[in-house]
């Protein structure tokens, strides 16, 4: 029955709003008939009902004609554009649920790219066309009906008969229609994956020598420091710091590039050893105190390596951007059923209000008097975003606080 109604609605090309209008017309006619019968002329109930249905039919016809005209206009424009592109284009009447979306027009590119005939496609719903494994990605499509005209919703989904090709779909609400456009992005995705691999290999090749140079300079200072003149010592110190900074930048860029091009699968992680490890590493790099929470175990959904990087960045930043006699970072955890909050509070120099807006931007540095690469916070935000978490900055009268929120492990 639902299928018949769907087809019928597809054939007359109307939306739920039109059906409501038709029902209102019938009800209004019945009401007018009853009033006329009561006060003016004695109509029989059959005549009242008949006239009501005639009025409804005329209303439906007018609506359908209006829709067909609008559809024809849009279709005409799309036919013109679709000749110049290999994109898949289609029109569907506006529906509330995605499984009810049935195309009323498709362009020729569908047959070329997917192998389906245009007539076949007009009998299928959007869900019949999508690769079953990608069906869950269609959830966002339900929001299309709620969009205002002209706004669009997009996502990368494979077409079932598209020979493994991946299309980026754009669903645009236009009046009573949804305009659908699918662009083949398979090659672009392959190129992005290759670029990511290239970035990863390059990062590895650059990171090694940079770290080695830093360690060699440090070893000269440690082994022969007593015989090296002061100006030479300063320069060796600079070589060591800059090389280390280069290595850190390369690692951060490599991680960011990798993150942008892959999906991160979050898994249950105990964050306490990670915070402990990050604090230990940060104390090796910077002088200061780190106060740790007393919990033994706190499980969140995350990734060991990525969260370790986030925690290290936040603790090290707290010790680095600090002019206190004893730089301190205090880590506090607040477990909750919905989100686990990890708060990193420091007694550092803080961030001036005018610099806070760009705090998480790549290569942005809010302090000129301290060394830094400007990638730590950008990387932390990118990692947390991939793990469905978040990070926010809270200014304090004496220092700063960063609050990391992560999903608890079920």
């Amino acid at each position: 029955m639902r299928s018949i109604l769907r087809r019928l609605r597809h054939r007359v090309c109307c939306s739920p709003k039109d059906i409501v209008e038709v029902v209102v017309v019938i009800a209004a006619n019945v009401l007018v008939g009853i009033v006329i019968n009561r006060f003016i002329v004695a109509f029989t109930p059959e005549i009242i009902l008949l006239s009501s249905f005639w009025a409804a039919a005329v209303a439906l016809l007018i609506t359908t004609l209006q829709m067909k005209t609008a559809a024809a206009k849009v279709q005409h424009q799309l036919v013109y554009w679709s000749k110049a592109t290999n994109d898949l284009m289609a029109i569907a009447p506006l529906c509330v649920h995605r499984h009810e979306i049935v195309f009323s027009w498709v362009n020729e590119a569908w047959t070329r790219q997917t192998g389906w005939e245009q007539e076949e496609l007009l009998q299928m719903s959007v869900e019949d066309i999508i690769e079953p494994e990608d069906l869950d990605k269609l959830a966002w499509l339900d929001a299309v009906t709620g969009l205002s005209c002209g706004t669009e919703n997009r996502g990368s989904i494979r077409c079932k008969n598209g020979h493994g090709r991946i299309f980026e779909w754009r669903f645009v609400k236009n009046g009573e229609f949804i305009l659908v456009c699918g662009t083949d992005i398979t090659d672009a995705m392959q190129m992005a994956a290759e670029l990511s691999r290239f970035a990863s290999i390059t990062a590895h090749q650059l990171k090694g020598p940079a770290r080695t140079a830093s360690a060699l300079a440090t070893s000269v200072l440690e082994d022969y420091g007593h015989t090296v003149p002061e100006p030479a010592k300063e320069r060796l110190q600079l070589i060591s710091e800059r090389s280390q900074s280069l290595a850190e930048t390369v690692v951060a860029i490599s991680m960011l590039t990798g993150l942008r091009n892959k999906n991160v699968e979050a898994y249950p992680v105990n964050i306490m050893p990670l915070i402990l490890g990050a604090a230990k590493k940060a104390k090796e790099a910077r002088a200061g105190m780190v106060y740790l929470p007393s919990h033994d175990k706190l499980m969140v959904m995350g990734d060991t390596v990525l969260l370790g990087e986030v925690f290290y960045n936040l603790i090290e930043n707290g010790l680095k951007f600090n002019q206190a006699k004893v730089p301190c970072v205090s880590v506090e955890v607040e477990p909750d059923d919905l989100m686990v909050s990890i708060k990193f509070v420091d007694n550092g120099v803080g961030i001036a209000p005018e610099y806070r807006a760009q705090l998480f931007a790549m290569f942005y540095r809010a302090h000129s008097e301290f060394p830094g690469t400007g990638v730590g916070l950008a990387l932390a935000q990118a990692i947390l975003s991939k793990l469905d978490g978040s990070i926010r900055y809270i200014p304090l009268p004496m220092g700063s606080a960063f609050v990391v929120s992560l999903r608890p492990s079920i």
Partner: protein
Amino acid sequence: MKRILLVEDDDADAMLAERAISRVLQPTGVVYEVIRARDGIVACDKLFDGEKLRQSFDLVLLDLHLPRMSGIDCLKAIRANHSGWKLPVVIMTTSNTQADIEKAYLNRTNGYVEKPLRPVDFNQVIQKTFSFWLDLNQVPQ
């Protein structure tokens, strides 16, 4: 005498590793010898003569990215040899990606340390490795 096989192609990294080893072992009075191999094939040649150990080592420090035969392939070869499956092998590399760490442990490495080797890291490595081999087991001869 403790014998350490250092499998490292980069001279600077090898120099830093040897420095870390000397910083940790010299103050303890342990007599040691570091034998260097520049790739996996040379390392296997130094370790094995067919199925037999050519010479015994107390520790193998193995870089992952090596010419000719990679560190992982060398580790596989060591573990595949009947005489090498008990040999303490510690992977030493600049890569800290989860995939590389997992691959190393799946191929039965005894430990993992980041390059360039620092005295503090080497100290931890030998603490863990030797406590296992000296307190709980005997290094195969």
